[in-house]
């Protein structure tokens, strides 16, 4: 009886020590789930989800504070990916957070720009160059189309221009099966 107890206690101690060591030795820095969610999000950093950036939204989803359908730039496909990752049901994009739009980039009308730097401060990815009282311009390849620069502009000189398809970005269409009318 005593021997059995001692043996069991001994095993418990040894296993406990092993587990304790392993938890220190193989500690994972950060939350891998947050990174996985963050990788799915489009990184527009627009804040339409109600969080200041994609990473905070990913954190909120991981903590169960936010739903998966709050990201308009990610669209339906993004929600599907999140649903797959988290093993949840797909749900349509929540309307209060916005609607899915074609990808656009900001364009500054350089004639109207007064060089106030407000848009530069608003840009989450530093995609606008310029200085005080100097004309500003958007570095197009870096712009995520978040629209955060539109509101601060005091002269409304920023517009969103849809990204046009070029020979380099053109995609073959999904083959459509023609349904022919038979007599």
């Amino acid at each position, binding site marked *: 009886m005593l021997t059995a107890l001692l043996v069991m206690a001994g095993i418990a101690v040894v296993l406990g020590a092993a587990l304790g060591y392993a938890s220190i030795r193989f500690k994972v820095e950060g939350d891998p789930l947050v990174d996985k969610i963050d990788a799915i999000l489009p*990184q527009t950093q627009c804040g339409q989800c109600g969080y200041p950036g994609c990473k905070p939204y990913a954190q909120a989803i991981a903590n169960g504070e936010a739903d998966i359908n709050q990201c308009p730039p990610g669209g339906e496909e993004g929600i599907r990916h999140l649903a797959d990752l988290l093993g949840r049901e797909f749900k349509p994009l929540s309307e209060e957070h916005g609607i899915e739009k074609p990808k656009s980039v900001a364009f500054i009308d350089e004639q109207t720009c007064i060089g106030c730097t407000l848009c530069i401060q608003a840009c989450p*990815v530093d995609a606008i160059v310029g200085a005080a009282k100097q004309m500003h311009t958007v570095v197009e390849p*870096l712009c995520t189309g978040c629209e955060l620069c539109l509101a601060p502009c005091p002269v409304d000189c920023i517009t969103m221009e849809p990204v046009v*398809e070029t020979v380099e970005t053109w995609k073959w269409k999904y083959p459509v099966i023609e349904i022919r009318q038979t007599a």
Partner: protein
Amino acid sequence: MIRKLFKFHGGVHPEPHKSESATAAIRPAPMPSELVVPLRQSTRAAARCIVEVGQHVLKGQRIGEAEGKLGTAVHAPTSGEVIAIGDHPMAHPSGLTAPAVHIRPDGLDQWIDLTPFDYDANDRISMLANLRDAGIVGMGGAAFPSHIKLGTGIGIETLVINGAECEPWITCDDRLMRERGNAVIDGAAILAEVIGARRVLIGIEDNKPEAVESMRKAVAEARPALPMDVIAVPSLYPAGGEKQLIRVLTGIEIPHGKLGGEFGVQCFNTGTAHAVHRAVRFGEPLVSRIVTLTGNADTPGNYEVLVGTPIQHLLPLMGPRPDTDRFLLGGPMMGFALTDLSVPIVKGSNCIIAASPTLFPPPPAELPCIRCGECARACPAELQPFELYWFSRSRNFGKAQEYHLFDCIECGCCSYVCPSHIPLVDYYRFAKSEIWARERESAAADQARDRFEFRNYRQEREKTEKAAKLAAKAAETKAKLAETEGVDNKVQVADGSEDPKKALIAAALARAKQQKAAIKPANTDNLPPEAEAEIAEIEARRQKALGGSEPKPLGVLTTDNNGGEDKQS
């Protein structure tokens, strides 16, 4: 000499249709009234325009500078005036536009001063730069820059010259080899020297006996320094695919994701060899190519066409029959139907086929895949086309890539043999471009993430730096104060009733007052009496104004205005 030839997997035997256009000699195409030279000759890279509207250019003058890693130069195909620089539809299945230089020929066709390139007096690097600036690209259709292919390194043992021309209908390489065999052989010798090849294999499909004969004769005449063999390979589509021809001639099988250069073999088209010959021996940049005009036409043939000639200008040459319903650019297996006939010939355009419903009947309706495996038997890349089809169709792109979607050469063998008439290649093209789009998107997202994180870090750093600066300044002021008003301060602090902050403010106020008192009005010394009288008068007025009625502030006026507006509304 009997040489052992190898076989590649699969392949099909479509109707060759070579005889229609192969009988007539190459003729020069007449000069069009306007040439449209695209600065973007392929989807890979665009040249930077270096001419202006109104400028007069000579034939062979560079109009576009090579830009980027895969860029090559673009030249004026004839002498004339640049009348516009703007977007024009491109020879691309999308029918999208790309920047192009419009030239109105002056009819003189006057060459710029040409200087042949002396390879003996120059090194390899300048040779490659020379080819890039002569605009030499692969003439087989893909228009890949030749200097990049040559630049992979020396020590390539075998140079393969691709004269297979396996696609039905096309005969431009056939005619080129028959008529200009010597030039092709000379170009091949130059290419061999640049990559340091020890032997040259020229592969020609055995349905072109005249071309084989002509090339053998040219080799015998040229008496090249290294062994050059002209080899007739069995006609089997796609024997002209780079990996397939290398396999047939050398037995080397190039694995997934590798290029010929890594296995000591490099492959160039006969047209490219000819262009290299012209560029090195005569200094002529690539401004024209041979184009086959064939199909449902009365007078098919091969024409020497200037790059930039609009396709609609060439159509009368072949005389398309009345029932022609569309035109294909490239061969029937890999080409595409043109949506716009104003698109210009580019360096990679080898053939225009007039198509009619009788010649190219519309494909029967697509039926479900019956898993017969015909496509896998026909695939020259040894893929599993039916698996790729299922994954592409269901948009399961990860799985499609696992089955080596990107090894597909889009030759069309699988669609050709499919008993259910499934447009398999269309599905692969869709999947490939979708995967590329996703890769671009994810690269952009990664960049945005990095930039966003860096911006947050920068803002945080600026905040702490500012706080540190303020703290340092406050400490400095405090120390100064303690020095000057040491006694007072001590008393106050000892007193305990006064807040040290308040004491600081009081001290600052006192200092400001002191400073204000110390400031004297400028230019008040040694004034003439009249000026002093004036000052006194002004002072008196000022005192009066301050003491008496205050001047009406501006705000009143504005309020009035607002009131008026309110009434109006």
